[in-house]
């Protein structure tokens, strides 16, 4: 699927994978995430957090149960992260009762909670409203400033001036 594709992601760097539908953006990201198995010639020297096209949330579980199950975080830490996004009121709500945008925001909460250095994100802002999108980019910038790295796919404009862009042709 990919030929002559080689790149490095260093700390404080963001890489944006762009391209038309079906060009292999998601496939590339899944390869990087090691789904189903890491490619032998992909070397990762850091911990990673992955938010794919699907949110990986259980509809019948509450927000709290989903995030604690996935990140093994403490309730205090979880409440802080949700409060920052003004989502703390949803803590005990079942995920199936939330809108698609809210579910996406909850899935993105895994990123700061996971303490991972490398974030792998597939269309992270899909279903997010303007305010939530703005908050998300603010969080990405903060992660980069703290020495983290991000690889993401997107169709839309990315407000990260220093981001490397990989254009897939399909």
């Amino acid at each position, binding site marked *: 699927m990919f030929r002559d594709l080689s790149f490095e992601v260093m700390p404080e760097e963001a890489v944006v994978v762009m391209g038309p539908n079906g060009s292999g953006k998601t496939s590339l990201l899944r390869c990087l995430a090691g789904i189903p198995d890491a490619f032998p010639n992909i070397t990762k020297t850091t911990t990673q957090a992955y938010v794919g096209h699907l949110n*990986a949330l*259980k509809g*019948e579980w509450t927000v709290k149960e989903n995030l604690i*199950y996935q990140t093994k975080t403490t309730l205090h830490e979880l409440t802080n992260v949700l409060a920052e996004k003004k989502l703390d009121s949803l803590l005990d709500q079942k995920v199936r009762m939330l809108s698609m945008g809210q579910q996406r925001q909850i899935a993105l909460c895994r990123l700061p909670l996971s303490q991972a250095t490398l974030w792998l994100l597939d269309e992270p802002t899909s279903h997010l409203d303007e305010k939530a999108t703005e908050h998300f980019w603010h969080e990405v910038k903060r992660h980069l400033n703290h020495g983290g790295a991000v690889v993401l796919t997107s169709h839309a404009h990315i407000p990260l001036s220093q981001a490397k862009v990989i254009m897939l042709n399909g």
Partner: protein
Amino acid sequence: MANCFLQIRQASQSTIHLLLVFTSLLIAFGLLSSHQSSLWQAFLPILSMGLSYGMMTLSLDQLFREDCKDGTLEWIMSTHKPLEHYVGMKILTHWARLGIPVVGLVGLVSGFSSLALLWSIGITTLTLTLLGAMSSALCLNIKTQGALLPPLLTLPLGIPMMVASMVVTIDSHGVIFPYLTIQAGLFLMACALSFMVCPFALRLSVK
């Protein structure tokens, strides 16, 4: 452990329906043959095994499907934790959700008179879950499978276990050691096969 409780709590309506059907059939048969206790004694093991097979395998098509649909399976793979842990947890929770109630119900109906029957039902339901998990993982990518494919695939491998268990139950005062060995052997084989095949099939299904 908390994860197991969360998984068990996810018990769907279908599980409850299956348990109700199982209980009803067992009670109905018990009532019909109550005046002929020898008939009840003779048929209880066979009925229990047959119903256990249905109970354990009919709901297996959903074992991994939901996780595959909502992205949980993909996310688990991205964490690089061994898939064997995930498979083990799913199998244990399925058995805890259905197998333990079946053992309890059969125990109640038989008045906890036969330890061999309870042991046989316990090990058979666990083995059937292990075998069924394998067929469920293998069928994950088949779009129009229906609920009957995993039980049908499980049947050939499950029959020897059910036969051995019935012999142990019916002839519990005879020489049962060889059959107990067969049960243990089949259980170990199902364990080995399931933990080998399930992760492989799950990886294939998200490819």
